[in-house]
């Protein structure tokens, strides 16, 4: 072995990790928010649309889900600006990528949730004279959200972990901070131990919070 743990240099540069973690969370929250909107809109559209629209939405979902995220990140950051006249920073580029990426996963979650809403609930909504919009807003979506909450929590946490890919285009989030300390201090084991702990603790806090929300809104029996 012959490797003595020494965390001093990690604490000296801890702002790189702490600031990185905050940026990771920011990237995750913004991307998930945009992805949720994409997912909801496309899922609602999908279940009521004709064959062509369904095929297009399915193509988007299948394409994104079957391509490595790192390739999509490169494609948007290095590839896209060569064909469209757009300039954006690395964080913006990553948020764009992760939003489109999370949208594809969330369409699937919401779509299966919408299909799991019991038929009787919609009929009941119709029977008491709700308009289609009211049925969607007051019957379908709330029930769907309750059904999908557990799957939704898992997807959110997984997307939070995916923000580490932003380090490949030098976005200074947590993994990038870890690499910076790795290369500049060579306290390799220490920095990845601390980084691992930070991802784990944050992930479990998120999970715990989301489980509380699930319990609060658990589908009524």
């Amino acid at each position, binding site marked *: *072995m*012959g*490797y003595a743990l020494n965390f001093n240099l990690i604490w000296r540069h801890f702002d790189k990790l702490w600031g990185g973690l905050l940026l990771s969370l920011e990237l995750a929250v913004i991307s998930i928010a945009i992805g949720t909107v994409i997912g909801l809109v496309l899922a609602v559209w999908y279940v009521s649309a004709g064959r062509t629209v369904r095929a297009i939405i399915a193509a988007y979902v*299948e*394409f994104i*889900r*079957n*391509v*490595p*995220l*790192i*390739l*999509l990140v*490169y*494609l948007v950051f*290095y*590839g*896209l600006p*060569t*064909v469209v006249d757009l300039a954006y920073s690395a964080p913006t580029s990553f948020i764009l990528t992760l939003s489109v990426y999370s949208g594809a996963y969330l369409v699937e979650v919401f779509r299966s949730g919408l299909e799991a809403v019991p038929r009787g609930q919609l009929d009941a909504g119709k029977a008491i004279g709700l308009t289609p919009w009211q049925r969607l807003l007051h019957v379908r979506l709330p029930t769907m959200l309750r059904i999908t909450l557990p799957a939704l929590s898992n997807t959110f946490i997984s997307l939070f*972990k*995916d*923000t*580490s*890919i932003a*380090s*490949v285009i030098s976005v200074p989030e947590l*993994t990038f901070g*870890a*690499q910076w300390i*790795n290369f500049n201090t*060579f306290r*390799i*084991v220490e920095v*990845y131990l601390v*980084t*691992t702990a930070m*991802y*784990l603790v944050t*992930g*479990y806090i998120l999970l715990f919070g989301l489980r509380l929300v699930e319990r609060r809104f658990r589908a009524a029996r």
Partner: protein
Amino acid sequence: MVGQILYALPFLAQGFALTLWVSLLVVVLSLIAGVTLGVGLVYGPAPLRWAVRIFSDTIRGIPILVLMFFVYYGLPAIGLHLPSFWAAVLALTLFKTAQVIEYLRGAVASIPKGQSEAAMAIGLTFRQRLTYVIFPQAFRRFLPPWINGVTDAVKGSALVSLLGITDLMQAINQVIGRTYEAMPLYILGALIYFAVNYALSLASRRLERRFSFIRE
């Protein structure tokens, strides 16, 4: 542009072969390790169960990229020198193993308790119960998510490009470095990954339908 890409095709094919090789190694090694540890998690003594639970929850709780850097840079620091190819395979295998453990646990848990009680009642030993009653049924629950997870292994293998290993992802980046044709090459790469993974997920869906006669 087309000429340059055609010229680069053999190089890309080599990268693609390496992507498939890494994925295959990870899938096979993690299957062996994951099923072994998964059985330990379900049937093992308490200390083993805790150890597997902690392993699985820790590995699944951190980004695969962090795990890969940890293994790649960390092992030499403690005196273990693995070639970068095997360090990458080790890291990806650790990650996939944790997933396989959960697939196995889920599959076994989905078999009604009455099944193993009935097997016990007719006097089967523990090993016979697993071989003739539990595993044949659990296998059908295990297979679809596992095949679906193979696509994750193929996608995850693209991260080895960050360790200087020339897989498909790295080959694409290198060809872009020479030709500056970023967009066509990224799209070509995306289509190749898509073709492989979509075929795998179609297979998974077919199996799921085929095994759907099994009831709770």
